[in-house]
């Protein structure tokens, strides 16, 4: 445990001192901020137009238009975009974890230190996760704005917001586990990022491809495999045990795989 903590502190310090984390946080916040304010402005316009649309629908004897709803238009949409952006952000945040150690030759020190590869892996994984959680905390300003500009008594749904953050934490942890694995494969950070990005993209494509598969069981299987798909229920405010089990087993499997890669490298040194 002590070994894990030592690696965790060291990795977190490296992150804080590295410009990469700030640049990625900057890009992530700009993109999310843009989509958030766009959704807010859209809903603001829709709210203004809504009485007229409603009256028109009544006069035309049509079903009334859907009411303006900050949960659906702003919260769900913004956090869905965030989940999508993670595919591009995470490989860059995790690419250096082991690749840098290989390149600098410090991996030998790690392997010969009293800290086991498993503890090192846990420390690195948790450090990345802590940094990612920190970036997510920075997005709380969206919640503040949504609360500020919502009407009294009809504030955004707290349960939905909590569920969205929980889903993003699980999704991010899964992406980090893929990133750590890719980083353990190569000493080239760019290659690690590309491998990690490719794997994450593959999962995205698998989810999308399910819609084009004729066989229902096969389509369901593909949908189940897709990492992003399991975040959907969280983004709708539903916490499902099957999604949690999926994420835990996915993260566990990827970390075990990484551990085996490290063990294999260790005995080749």
């Amino acid at each position, binding site marked *: 445990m002590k070994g894990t903590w030592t690696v965790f502190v060291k990795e977190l*310090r490296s992150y*804080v*001192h*590295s*410009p990469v984390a*700030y*640049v990625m*946080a*900057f890009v992530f*916040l*700009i993109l999310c*901020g843009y989509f*958030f*304010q766009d959704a*807010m*402005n859209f*809903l*603001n316009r829709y709210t203004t137009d809504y009485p007229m649309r409603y*009256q028109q629908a*009544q006069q035309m*004897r049509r079903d*009334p238009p859907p*009411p*303006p*709803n900050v*949960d659906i238009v702003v919260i769900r949409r913004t956090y869905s975009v965030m989940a999508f952006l993670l595919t591009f952000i995470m490989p860059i945040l995790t690419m250096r974890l082991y690749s840098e150690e290989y390149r600098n030759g410090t991996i030998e020190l790690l392997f010969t230190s009293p800290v*086991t*590869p498993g503890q090192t892996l846990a420390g690195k994984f948790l450090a990345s996760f802590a940094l990612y959680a920190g970036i997510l905390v*920075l997005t709380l*300003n*969206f919640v503040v*704005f949504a609360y500020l*500009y*919502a009407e009294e008594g*009809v*504030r955004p*749904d*707290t*349960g*939905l917001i909590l569920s969205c953050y929980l889903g993003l934490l699980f999704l991010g942890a899964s992406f980090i586990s893929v990133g750590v694995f890719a980083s353990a494969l190569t000493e080239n950070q760019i290659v690690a990022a590309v491998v990690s990005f490719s794997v994450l993209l593959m999962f995205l494509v698998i989810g999308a491809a399910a819609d084009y*598969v*004729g*066989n*229902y069981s096969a*389509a*369901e299987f593909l949908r189940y495999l897709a990492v992003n798909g399991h975040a959907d*229920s969280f983004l*709708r*405010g*539903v916490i*499902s*045990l*099957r999604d949690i*089990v999926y994420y835990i*087993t996915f993260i566990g*499997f990827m970390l075990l795989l990484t*551990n*085996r890669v490290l*063990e*294999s490298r260790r005995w080749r040194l």
Partner: protein
Amino acid sequence: MVRSIPIPFIALVGLLLAVDGMVAWLASATVWGWGIPWAVGTGLLLGAFLSRLGIRKSVAFAAALVVLIALCAIIYVKGEVIGAFKLDSITAILLFLGLFVGEVGVGIASVLTGRASAQGANFWVYVVSALAIAVVLNYLTNRHVRTTYDITQAQLESLSDQTLAKMKGLRKDVHLFAFIRDSDPNRPGYAEMLKKYAAASRYFTFEFVDPDKYPDIAARENINPNDITIIVKCEDRRELVLGPEERDLTTAIIKVTRPGQKRIYFSMWHQERTLEGEMGMLANLLRQLNYATAPLKLIDSDVPPDCAVLVIPGPKAPFAPVEISRIERYLAEGGSALVLLDPDSIETGLENVVARWGVVVHPNMVIERQRGLVPYAGGLYMGEQQSMYARAMKYEPSHAIVADLESKGIATGFYQVREITWTGANPTLACTGTPIVFAGSRTSFAITEVKEALRNPRQAHSAEGKPSGPFSVAVAATAPPSVSTGVEGAKTRLVVVGDADFATDRVVSQERGNVDFMLNCITWLSEDEDLITIHSREPGYKPIVMTASQGTFMFLFCVWRYPAMVFVAGLLIWWYRRSRGPGKDN
């Protein structure tokens, strides 16, 4: 570890076969299709496990063979031993897990403690075993655990309270067949909804049938393979689900589990609306709700004892005294009636009948007056228009008939409607009643010159000195039967509406709320409250209101200033470290 590699592989093969058996069983394959792989797989798992316990391999696999033969014999003799199958599949998985802990778990533990290589662990054994356990865990969770928590306030992803109450009360096995092609894009949506139903009651099960793959089943159920068809079955009863909405599915479940068929009589021979004519759509909906409908000539006979609801749909001619007395007797004995009285009808005699239950039928008609976009000469223009069409958006929220219309903000529309009010309790009958629908806007008014207005519909009326809306146009009343019937809990139920047009095809097709209102009246009167229209949860009104300057501030803050602060902080830290040189950060 290395010398025992074949055992985990045997176990893995066993597990795959057992899972294959399970999948085949779920896909409704034959007993041999799922039974054989499952039995072989279980036998292999058992052999692997016994071997792991230290028993000699030959003995272990002999034992496994015996088990295998015994299981095959059970399958052969008993056919689909589903209960035993479930039990033994779980046993097989537990056996594998035990094997995993014993064989591979030790290896994982040694990896975590850094002694893996000393034992010469095999990379692929770990990977495949870890993958297998992940697959098993996910499979078991998907198959047996359907726990979901909708933690939102609006509960948009949950079934409605009415559906959940019905599902909780389910005590008979209900099975649903969804005839949908595998490739149909709507299938995941249906699956998602049906899973919620299955999670709400263990008596509810469902299966998807691709009509292309199983044309025999499609032919047996007499369905069109080109349409999505959903059938609900309970015991020997069968119901067709009419649409993709939650209300359609819940209604079908209620119908299929409800004993008997109730009969609704429609009075005739007084120039009423007819089920075959103007009210065809309503008649069709009633049939779909498992009600039988029949015309009734009150002049010839009493109200039949099997009458669940007597409907009098807009009579234009007066009732004979004998008919009136028959209606009165029916109501006094705890009957239920829906009386629709148009403003243009003459004194039918029913006005006095309903008056005994505290219902007052006014000789007037509501005129709607509104300013806004009005259709004229093919276009829309601003102006004031008087109309005999009054819409209702206000209902009595505590009454079962209209509670849902009120909470969902669903409008109903009435063409030529009269005012119907409730005077209060009648001490002789101990009535309780309430006005339930309020039609017309605040600017609407009621006129008493009904005949002139109907003769000249374009004539403008003066609102001066006339009562203004909204007006009560429907009243619901209940009372204990004044004549003892021997039926415990029997109650007279009466609904009077000041219009009959609202239930005709012409108006129903314009106002979707009218169908709900009419069916809710019938279901309430026939004491089938659980059939009262079910509406799935819908998003509420949660707007965002910003001024232009607030919008600009939010844009600048979210898209630029806030991220820039993070960037500048990073830049400063990087510059600080660079200026201090390497190795000085601690």
